[in-house]
C-alpha cells in the first residue's frame, strides 16, 4: 500500500512550521512520528495535498523540568519519555502507560504529542495525561495558549488544537511520591486497548489521600472517573474498601461495542481494571 502523492515540507523551527501551515490551505496533514498517520495515508483513508513533517524541529524534542512541572516537547518519542528519569520520578503513571504502547519499533518513532493530537480514544497516553491534570501548550500565529486537560479532548479524533495551530508541549504537574499503575486489557500482544485504566494515588499512613483515574476507550475521548476518585478519598488501601469505591468506575461512560466486546462488557472491565490499578498504585 502506497500513499497518494503529496507535497512534503520539513520545516526546522516552530515559526517556519506555523508559516507553512498558514500557507498550506485546508488540505494539509501534520506529520509527527507518523505511526498512526502513515498507516492512514497508506490505506488512503486520507489523501492530503500537503504533509508538514515536524521531525526536523529540535525545539519540540526533549523532557525538561520547570518548577513544579515536567515539560515534554510534543515531538519527544515514546522511547525517550520511557527512558526519562524525570518523568519516571514525577509522573510515573505516564511511564507505566507508555511501556504498554504498541511495540519497541513503534515507540522508537511515535511521539507523545502526535498521539495526543491524533486523540484515538483507544490510545494509551490520553488517559494518563488526563489523570495527571496535564496542561497542553498550543502554539499558533498569535502565540501560545495553554489548555487544561479536561478541555483538550473534545470528541473522537478531535482536540482543542485548531486550524493553523500546533501542540508544542505538555506540562505535567509533578506527582512526586504518588503510586501509579496502568492496567491495560488486550487479547493479543500490542493490540489497541480494549479498555485500560490509568490510576495514580497518594497514600498517607495507609489511607488514600488523593486519587486520579483516567479511562482509555470508554467513550469518544479519554475520561476521568471522578466518582471513583471522590469515593476513594479517606478509604483504607485495602481490597474491600477499594472494591466498593471502584464499583462506580463506569458511571457516565459510553464505551463502544465491537468484535472485542460489547459496551456492557467494557463497563464491567472498567470496574475490575480500576480496582486492580488503584490497589497496585496504592501498594507501590
Amino acid at each position, binding site marked *: 500500500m502506497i500513499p497518494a502523492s*503529496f507535497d512534503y515540507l520539513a520545516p526546522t523551527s516552530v515559526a517556519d512550521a506555523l508559516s507553512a501551515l498558514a500557507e498550506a490551505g485546508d488540505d494539509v496533514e501534520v506529520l509527527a512520528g507518523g505511526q498512526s498517520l*502513515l498507516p492512514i495515508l497508506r490505506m488512503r483513508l486520507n489523501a492530503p495535498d500537503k504533509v508538514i513533517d515536524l521531525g526536523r524541529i529540535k525545539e519540540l524534542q526533549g523532557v525538561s523540568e520547570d518548577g513544579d512541572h515536567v515539560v515534554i516537547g510534543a515531538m519527544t518519542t515514546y522511547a525517550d519519555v520511557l527512558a526519562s528519569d524525570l518523568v519516571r520520578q514525577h509522573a510515573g503513571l505516564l511511564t507505566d502507560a507508555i511501556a504498554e504502547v504498541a511495540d*519497541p*519499533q513503534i515507540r522508537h518513532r511515535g511521539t507523545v504529542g502526535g498521539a495526543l493530537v491524533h486523540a484515538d480514544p483507544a490510545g494509551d497516553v490520553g488517559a494518563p495525561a488526563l489523570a495527571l491534570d496535564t496542561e497542553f501548550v498550543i502554539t499558533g500565529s498569535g502565540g501560545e495558549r495553554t489548555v487544561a486537560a479536561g478541555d483538550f479532548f473534545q470528541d473522537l479524533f478531535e482536540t482543542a488544537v485548531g486550524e493553523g495551530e500546533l501542540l508544542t508541549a505538555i506540562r505535567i504537574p509533578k506527582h512526586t511520591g504518588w503510586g501509579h499503575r496502568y492496567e491495560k486489557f488486550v487479547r493479543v500482544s500490542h493490540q489497541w486497548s480494549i479498555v485500560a485504566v490509568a490510576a495514580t494515588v497518594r497514600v498517607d499512613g495507609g489511607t488514600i489521600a488523593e486519587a486520579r483515574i483516567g479511562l482509555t476507550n470508554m467513550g469518544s475521548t479519554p475520561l476521568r472517573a471522578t466518582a471513583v476518585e471522590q469515593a476513594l478519598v479517606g478509604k483504607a488501601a485495602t481490597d474491600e474498601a477499594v472494591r466498593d469505591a471502584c464499583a462506580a468506575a463506569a458511571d457516565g461512560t459510553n464505551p463502544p461495542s465491537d468484535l472485542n466486546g460489547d459496551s456492557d462488557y467494557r463497563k464491567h472491565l472498567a470496574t475490575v481494571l480500576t480496582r486492580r490499578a488503584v490497589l497496585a498504585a496504592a501498594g507501590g
Partner: protein
Amino acid sequence: MTRISVTVDGVDYSDEVEPRTLLVHYLREQLGKTGTVVGCDTSNCGACTVHLDGRSVKSCNVLAVQADGHDVTTIEGLATNGELHPMQQAFHECHALQCGYCTPGMIMQAIDVLNDNPNPSEQEIRVGLEGNLCRCTGYHNIVKAVQQAAGAGAATGSSAGTTSGSTLGGEPV
C-alpha cells in the same frame, strides 16, 4: 521529487524519491536491498524492521524522506567480510526459522533488544520481540537464539555496515 542523502549499510546514497515513497520501498526497489521484506504492510508484523540511527523501526511505517541525513542498517549490512553477525549465527545454529520470512526483521529487532539490555530474561526477550510476528516457529527457537547470542555478546555491531553494499538502482555518492 525530493533529493535525499542516506547512509545504508555503510554506503552513502543520494537519490531522488517521491515524498510518498516508504523507506522499505526505497531500500528494496531503488537500492535493490531485498533482504528487507514487506510482510503485513500494516506496521503490525515487523518483518520490515531495520535500524534508523541505531534504533529499530518498521520501514513500512517511515517515509524515505524522513530518513534524509540519517543512517540505516538493514539485514544485509550485518555480516562483515562474509562472516555472519553473532545474531545471524545464533539463528542459524538454533534453527530459529522455518519459512524464514520474518527472519530479517526478527534478527534486526533481536539485536535492538540486546542493545537495550545485553542480558535479558526470557520474558524480556519475548516482550522485546512483541512487534515481530512469526507464524511458523512458535517463537521457541527464536528466544533460544537470542539467549545464545546474548551469551556471545551480540549487543555490539548493530550499525557496523559493510562498505561493499549493493548499489543497484541507487546512486552511490
